[in-house]
């Protein structure tokens, strides 16, 4: 082992340019991976540490209805064992300032004295919650003050109640983060909620009972007991270690995809490592022949160069890991805003170890193929120079190819965390690399076939694209992958922002009005028509109900526990009735009811995804619990609903008459000109304080803001792919340095000016960059289309300017990198160079 180790060091010492390239290739990719993985780990740890604060207690009981007697009894029993219980009610409502005429949708939270059980509510001014709230105090988020032009101490109306702004909420431990909030938080005392008159029949209130258990009681065990005691599936019981599964899932997915983008940068780096190893072996073949001559067998040589690669890979990975910590620090502010507490970015040993392993394994796999050539170098090379370069070694190349391919695929699956996502990634990567490599090959072939150009610089620059031992394919692929990703992200952002632009969505209402009481409808329509010009609101009667049985089988906990789609079984459904199918309805199974059929028995049309969850089909039945009355209805049709349309849509539509007598409220939508929006909202809220106005423009803007943040995070990591491409290109130019030096000296000896040589170089570099852009951008358009069409289900917008930019920028980048790597060559005097050759 002594020889390989020492020889590896000596060879490394003697080839520092090659070393720097391989080092850089790996470092960039590992930085991205470690950055993402460390961020994910920090986030996970923070979520774990803050789990009790995030949930609000050791246990949480949550329901869309007030807790029933059994639940209360169970809570009382817990309190008897030393547990502390505090109740919280959450709902959306309208804040308004009648004196000044502003209204705003807010997320209202009414808390009891014990709140919060865990974590701390930070307010400005600070103080005990009871004192701050008093009888009529409200704590609000800064955004409310800004939007309504208020200050602490000012009065504000919430629903029908007048409150005094007692302070600003800086940090709320259990703000069930969700990514999207409807409006700023307003916190009031539990006793004051009635004054708002927002809790009326049919209003949507989330009732939460938070429990702090005594030391002796285990949260999981207590949860299990409660689950048995309280069979109502509509009552969600969570232990702290299961807090916010949706948030966790979101972050898991986000970090998975960021990690895969990071893996792309590592793989691009791998292309550079492979190319670098190839030129290294090619340049070192004389030394290799000599070593064989001195008695080195192929195992010793292989071990030597693999050792060298491993050391380089490790060094690059370590540097990358260090850089990754900086990436982590950048990701925290970009994505961390989604959680209600500070994410502590720190060294994550597991993430670093994984990054090092990734870097090392990628290096190893990427050098295996070029190092096969070691065996083929004949010691007879010492005796005479062969005309051709080292032939590729004959025996069983497919074994190495298979090993490298499987190894890289395994890395992808490891990074993806699931075989399915890994397989999709591998498939997409193979397709993209194949297309990029094919284009690069085509380009070199085209350059070779071009008629002889009259300009020396062009002739020479184009000829460089197909020079023997050139790395055109590698460079175009490496840069092209980066172009593809960055342009894709930009295209997605453009399409999404176009999609989220209310002005372009003619069919989307500007407002949803919720909780209109039956006796308010006429006045409501008058108000809207009066303020909104000639716009007429569309009112739909709705009945809130809970799913009670499927095909006659009661929906109990055993049906919902542990299911990702449990929410479909336990949520409060908003039911409506319709005689004819609503506009744009697409029936996928069955048919709509006839007038005659509606009189026979209740019938329903169910959204197809929900039906799939329930396991019902046409002919089956669903039973809803409507305020305690079970209503069984036969499924007559399944519908596909375009939720993206943001119009009033329903999971379940009843046949007319089926819900007669059930207590209903009304949901209204209205589209008004932009300039009338604020006035309409103010007028409706002033006239009907219990009605909640959801401004769609605000919601879309919030979604857009979240998308921007996610986009920024993806762009940050995608930049590493470009970075890796740049290193690969610089590496390829460094590898052909001597050839270039010699050529430039020769050209200048033959009378070319330095500018002339520079121009020839420029043509070559520009062609490389343009090829990467010309391949990467169309691929980006394709990838963007696939993601929009099949993943986001958002229409694709054609962005010619962006695609053009996707060609121009890489061309300029390639020029910059090219000259950065070679400008010193131009300054060298020809004679010493030629003599050295």
């Amino acid at each position, binding site marked *: 082992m002594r020889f390989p180790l020492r020889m590896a060091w000596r060879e490394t010492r003697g080839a520092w340019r090659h070393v720097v390239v391989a080092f850089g290739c790996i470092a960039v990719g590992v930085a991205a991976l470690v950055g993402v993985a460390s961020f994910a780990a920090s986030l996970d740890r923070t979520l774990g540490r803050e789990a009790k604060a995030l949930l609000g207690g050791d246990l949480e009981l949550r329901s869309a209805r007030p807790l029933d007697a059994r639940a209360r009894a169970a809570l009382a029993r817990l309190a008897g064992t030393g547990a502390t219980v505090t109740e919280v009610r959450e709902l959306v409502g309208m804040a308004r300032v009648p004196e000044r005429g502003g209204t705003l949708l807010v997320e209202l939270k009414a808390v009891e004295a014990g709140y919060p059980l865990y974590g701390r509510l930070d307010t400005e001014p600070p103080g005990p919650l009871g004192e701050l709230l008093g009888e009529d105090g409200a704590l609000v988020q800064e955004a409310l003050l800004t939007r309504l032009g208020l200050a602490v101490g000012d009065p504000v109306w919430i629903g029908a109640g007048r409150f005094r702004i007692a302070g600003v909420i800086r940090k709320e431990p259990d703000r069930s983060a969700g990514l999207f909030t409807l409006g700023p938080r307003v916190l009031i005392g539990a006793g004051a909620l009635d004054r708002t008159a927002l809790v009326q029949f049919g209003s949507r209130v989330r009732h939460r009972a938070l429990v702090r258990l005594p030391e002796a009681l285990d949260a999981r065990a207590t949860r299990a007991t409660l689950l048995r005691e309280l069979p109502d599936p509509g009552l969600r019981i969570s232990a702290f270690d299961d807090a916010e599964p949706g948030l966790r899932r979101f972050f898991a997915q986000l970090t998975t995809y960021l990690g895969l983008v990071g893996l792309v940068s590592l793989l691009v780096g791998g292309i550079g490592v492979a190319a670098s190893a190839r030129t290294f072996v090619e340049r070192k073949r004389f030394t290799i022949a000599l*070593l*064989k001559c001195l008695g080195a067998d192929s195992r010793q040589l292989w071990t030597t160069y693999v050792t060298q690669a491993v050391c380089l890979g490790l060094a690059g990975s370590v540097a990358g890991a260090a850089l990754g910590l900086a990436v982590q620090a950048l990701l925290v502010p970009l994505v961390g805003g989604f959680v209600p507490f500070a994410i502590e970015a720190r060294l994550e040993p597991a993430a670093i170890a994984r990054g090092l392993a990734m870097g090392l394994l990628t290096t190893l796999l990427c050098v295996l193929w070029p190092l096969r050539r070691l065996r083929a170098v004949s*010691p007879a090379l010492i005796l005479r120079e062969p005309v051709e370069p080292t032939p590729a070694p004959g025996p069983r190349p497919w074994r190495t190819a298979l090993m490298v391919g499987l190894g890289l695929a395994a890395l992808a699956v490891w990074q993806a965390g699931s075989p399915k996502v890994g397989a999709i990634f591998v498939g997409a990567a193979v397709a993209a690399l194949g297309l990029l490599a094919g284009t690069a090959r085509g380009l070199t072939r085209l350059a070779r076939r071009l008629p002889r150009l009259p300009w020396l610089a062009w002739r020479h620059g184009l000829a460089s694209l197909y020079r023997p031992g050139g790395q055109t394919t590698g460079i175009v692929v490496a840069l092209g992958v980066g172009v593809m990703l960055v342009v894709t992200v930009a295209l997605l952002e453009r399409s999404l922002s176009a999609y989220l632009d209310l002005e372009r969505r003619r069919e989307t209402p500007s407002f949803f009005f919720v909780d209109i009481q039956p006796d308010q409808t006429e006045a409501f329509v008058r108000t809207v028509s009066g303020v909104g010009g000639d716009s007429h609101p569309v009112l739909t009667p709705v009945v809130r109900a809970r799913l009670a049985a499927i095909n006659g089988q009661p929906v109990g906990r055993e049906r919902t526990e542990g299911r990702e789609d449990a929410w479909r079984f336990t949520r409060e459904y908003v039911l409506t009735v319709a005689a004819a199918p609503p506009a744009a309805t697409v029936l996928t199974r069955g048919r709509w009811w006839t007038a005659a059929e509606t009189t026979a028995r209740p019938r329903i049309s169910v959204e197809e995804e929900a039906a799939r969850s329930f396991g019902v089909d046409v002919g089956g039945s669903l039973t809803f619990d409507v305020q305690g009355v079970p209503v069984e209805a036969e499924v007559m049709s399944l519908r596909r609903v375009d939720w993206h349309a943001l119009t009033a849509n329903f999971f379940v539509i009843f046949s007319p008459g089926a819900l007669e007598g059930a207590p209903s409220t009304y949901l209204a939508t209205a589209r008004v000109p932009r300039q009338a929006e604020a006035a309409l909202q103010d007028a409706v809220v002033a006239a009907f304080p219990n009605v909640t106005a959801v401004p769609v423009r605000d919601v879309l803007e919030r979604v857009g803001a979240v998308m921007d943040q996610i986009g920024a995070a993806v762009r940050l990591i995608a930049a590493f792919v470009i970075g890796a491409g740049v290193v690969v290109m610089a590496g390829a130019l460094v590898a052909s340095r001597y050839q270039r030096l010699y050529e430039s000296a020769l050209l200048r000896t033959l009378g070319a000016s330095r500018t002339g040589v520079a121009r020839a170089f420029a043509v070559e570099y520009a062609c490389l960059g343009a090829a990467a852009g010309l391949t990467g951008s169309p691929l980006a358009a394709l990838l963007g289309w696939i993601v929009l069409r099949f993943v986001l289900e958002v229409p694709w917008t054609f962005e010619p300017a962006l695609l053009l930019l996707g060609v121009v920028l890489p061309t300029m980048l390639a020029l910059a990198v090219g000259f950065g790597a070679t400008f010193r060559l131009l300054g060298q005097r020809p004679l010493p160079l030629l003599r050295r050759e």
Partner: protein
Amino acid sequence: MIEVRDLVMRLRGGGGPVTILDGLSLQVPARQFLAVTGPSGSGKSTLLGLIAGLDRPTAGSIRVDGRDLGQLDEDALARLRRDTIGYVFQSFHLIPTLTALENVVVPLELAGAADPLARATALLGEVGLAGRVHHYPAQLSGGEQQRVALARAFANGPRLLLADEPTGNLDSTTGAGIIDLLVGWHRERGSTLVLVTHDPALARHADRTVELRDGRIVADRLNGHGRP
């Protein structure tokens, strides 16, 4: 020590196959100092390379130290060279990125020798380069480079020394020094020495001279002082 039988070597050339060695047979007993002479292109260097197992002949067989080279794979040939053969080239062939000392250390390390650095330093002392051990080939004169190459060839105490025009790139004084070192080593250690040269004066130092022309032996004579 060396048994060459009906050796044929043809290479592909621009105008069809070129015959370099044409049915050559030769026996070299242990401890003999054999000079191989002949005009350039007569196949001297190729013969030497084939004896070292650096290439495979088109036909014929070679036995070195009792082992049939045709039966050995590339790695076994490498080990044979490592343990049995020292090779000296006309153009030195030092590894440019290694110091003199490191160039000599390589074969010792390949053989897994104990304390390779000390032994390499001693060897460089023996060839008169004690003060130049940390110099790179580019910093050494031609004569010095060839001395390093000699030390490298001597490193594992080879029983067979193959020298391919070792003075061809050197002036006569420097060349004489190199030959003295080579022959001195051969005499002291009793190793077999095959020296390719086109210098008749140099060939006269040998026990026996074989002259090649067009890939065949045209003369094979014992010199007066030589052993058979």
